[in-house]
């Protein structure tokens, strides 16, 4: 063996450190929520908002309209005065409930794509409870309708959750397929056995007046359902982020094996979170009936379930961001309706925008790391 001497480097004066051995290598700073400075926490929403605004302006300009004033007109339509705000808010009430419902399930690792179906089922349940039971004391009747909707939505979702928990049936696909099955079944009910004979289209009978929320601001469709929504959002936030049950569900979602090994019943958490999620979606559907339509019709919930899914994804299943995003989304939809009335920009603008925004949000981390890598490579090249 050649006698290459050891290249001992123990003593390196430049690396003398006051830290103990083990701490010499700097460890990455904890990125806990509490530790993150406000500026860093605002960077993501700001980035997304700017990206969205630029996209909106470009799209409007591409239609041959003056971008700023057109967008301004739209925003004025959405937020210009208290009545506009109320109208914008009223539009979103069911979406608030459905979105936090979907978030709740995502948080426990259950991708409930079946929100749409559960909304339909809830709407149908509420419409039946409102039309075939009563009239009775309004508060009681409303409670009954919401309860019915919650139970029906919850049972459907719980069933799908059970299939996943017990038999390992992928919930993404099963909830997706359940949408079509439930919507078609509801359409069957509304066009055949439960149809209102006085109407020419597939609708159920109108609910009793006692099963309708009262308007709290005339001509804005803003009803006292607002308070129900506020209570539900607050309760869901507590359940998901603060309570022990929420802890169990979150652990089940993030680290199912950890949950199982530390004594959390993963099966129970999955089924229960799905049930709660379905119940919330069901209530969202019920609000479509009791705070707006007064009856079920075959396409009452078109797209709300998918909106809720998108919002849950973009808000990473956190209830507070979800509520903020629903608000932003409502404003976007409302503004798009406003823009459509003053220009020929199609209101699909809002769908195009929300897609762009979500991709921008999802790609943000990647964009920044690509950027850093580029910078490093550049520095590398310069260094040589």
């Amino acid at each position: 063996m050649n006698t290459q001497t050891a290249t001992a480097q123990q003593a390196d004066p430049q690396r003398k450190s006051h830290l103990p051995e083990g701490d010499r290598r700097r460890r990455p700073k904890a990125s806990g929520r509490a530790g993150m400075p406000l500026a860093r926490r605002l960077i993501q929403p700001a980035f997304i908002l700017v990206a969205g605004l630029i996209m909106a302006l470009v799209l409007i300009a591409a239609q041959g309209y003056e971008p700023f004033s057109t967008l301004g007109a739209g925003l004025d339509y959405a937020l210009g005065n208290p009545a506009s705000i109320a109208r914008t808010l009223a539009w979103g009430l069911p979406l608030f409930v459905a979105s936090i419902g979907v978030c709740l399930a995502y948080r426990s690792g259950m991708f409930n794509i079946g929100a749409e179906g559960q909304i339909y089922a809830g709407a149908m349940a509420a419409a039946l409870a409102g039309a075939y039971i009563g009239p009775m004391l309004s508060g009681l009747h409303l409670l009954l309708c919401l309860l019915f909707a919650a139970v029906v939505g919850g049972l459907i979702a719980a069933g799908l959750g059970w299939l996943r928990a017990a038999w390992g049936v992928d919930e993404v696909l099963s909830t997706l397929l359940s949408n079509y099955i439930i919507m078609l079944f509801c359409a069957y009910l509304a066009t055949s056995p439960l149809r209102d004979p006085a109407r020419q289209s597939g609708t159920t009978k109108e609910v009793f007046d006692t099963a309708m929320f009262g308007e709290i601001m005339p001509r804005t469709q803003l009803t006292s359902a607002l308070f129900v929504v506020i209570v539900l959002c607050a309760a869901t936030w507590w359940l998901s982020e603060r309570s022990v049950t929420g802890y169990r569900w979150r652990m089940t979602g993030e680290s199912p094996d950890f949950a199982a090994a530390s004594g959390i019943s993963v099966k129970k958490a999955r089924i229960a979170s799905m049930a709660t999620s379905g119940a919330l979606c069901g209530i969202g559907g019920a609000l479509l009936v009791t705070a707006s339509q007064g009856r079920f019709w075959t396409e009452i919930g078109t797209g709300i379930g998918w909106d809720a899914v998108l919002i849950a994804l973009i808000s990473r299943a956190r209830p507070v961001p979800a509520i903020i995003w629903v608000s932003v989304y409502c404003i976007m939809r409302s503004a798009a309706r406003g823009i459509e009335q003053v220009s020929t920009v199609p209101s699909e603008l809002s769908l195009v925008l929300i897609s762009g925004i979500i991709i921008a949000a999802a790609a943000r981390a990647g964009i920044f790391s690509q950027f850093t890598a580029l910078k490093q490579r550049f520095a590398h090249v310069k260094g040589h």
Partner: protein
Amino acid sequence: MSSNDQAAPSPVLELQGITKTFGPVVANENVNFDLYPGEIHALVGENGAGKTTLMRILFGMYRPNAGSIRLGGREVELKKPMDAIEHGIGMVHQHFMLVPSFSVLENITLGAEPGAGGLFDRGRAEEAARGPMERLGLALDPSTVTGSLNVATQQKLEITKVLYRGAKIIILDEPTAVLTPQETEELFVLLKKLAADGSSIIFISHKLREVFAVADRITVLRNGRTVSTTPARDLDASAVVAAMTGRSDVNLGRITRNAPEDDVVLSVSGLSTAKFEHDAALDSINFEVRAGEVVGIAGVEGNGQSALAETLIGTAAPLAGKIELAGTDLTRLAVSARRDLGLSYVPEDRHREGIPINGSVLEGLAAGTLRRHRGWNGLANAFPRALQAWGTDMISKYAIRTSGRNAKCHTLSGGNQQKIVMARELEEQPKCIVLAQPTRGVDLGAIEFLYDRIAEATARSCAVVLISADLDEILRLSDRVLVMYRGRMVAEETATETSREELGMHMTGAKALGTAA
């Protein structure tokens, strides 16, 4: 195998001043390393010392921030693994790089498939693979599905891949971690033969015994820096340990503990399970653990240890048999009920089962406490002030190095993550604790600390089931050792009266004595 001084051949490989950082983590700093033809050069160091990183740089998987690589005296740039392969470097990775669903032949030829126009020429592939397979004594049908092979064969397959590519420099990153002592011996014979044929080998291992058995030279890394490069014959184990840890007082001997008591805490009888992922099925396991006793369960991985651990804690269900804890039958109980009765569990896969990897430190610590909220209590606040304060206490009591209780678990190093698990499980004051690979991937300092905690628990009459692939660990901690082989208990030994060699024999099933206890 050692080259002669008068020939003074030039090194086939020289790494000079290699530095590599991952964000703020400096994995390698100004590392020098060289390799001569026909040499087996061992690379040792604690966890996270930067061994794997250095080898990945050599294999073109990472680009170093600074430093140069010379092959046969010429400086080269290795931008991707293909470059390294073309320069005759082959790597057997710490984790198998075999596609389980592929056939043996497909795995050997992956990335260098013979054939024209993107078509796979099976005939030529078989022919080309035959040579390397024969050299390693691998008599296999090339169309066997790789996932169905045992680990030793998969290990040989990895080397076959390297030889198929015509490598002259072979890197082996912890190749023996999953092998029995006998299989390890076989591997060493093979390595020496390859070296004699002119290949150069870089060998990474945590087991100094093995390093001294094969290596011509030993390079020690600490905290990403080269500490020393010395011919193996000039060194002994304690010198290497001192170089690795920077300390000379490391205890490598038995842990002093109190003697076990008489009453049986855990009793397992006739326990059988179905086959369990990559693990053998249990076949009527019987054993007892007394208060304050540590029973070590030895065996090559995949012989039913995981199945045993999971069945004990209740995340897997047995087919037959009975588990009793202090007289209470646990067999039909859920995990939470078992834990309520005083059973604790340190799982083998820390990231998956031990901690919520994306959750906070507090969320990892509090699992036990929060388990006790039942029914409507589930709606109560999970982390009131008192619990947060408790979390901070635990962090200091167990010396968990973290920025705070709200730090995410994945920002902690392996040893500190393991401390979270140990803190949580020991604070439950269990009657019995099941430890599965409690110090895997944990370095010497942390290991000492954790062993002390285990000793404390036994002093409180806690019964300990210690499942470990590390025989040294078992011999240092246990009172009795049970050996598992193919889902059965094949031997029972008293720790102080047995030896590594004897246990190694049991582990291969060579001395099957029938069921113990």
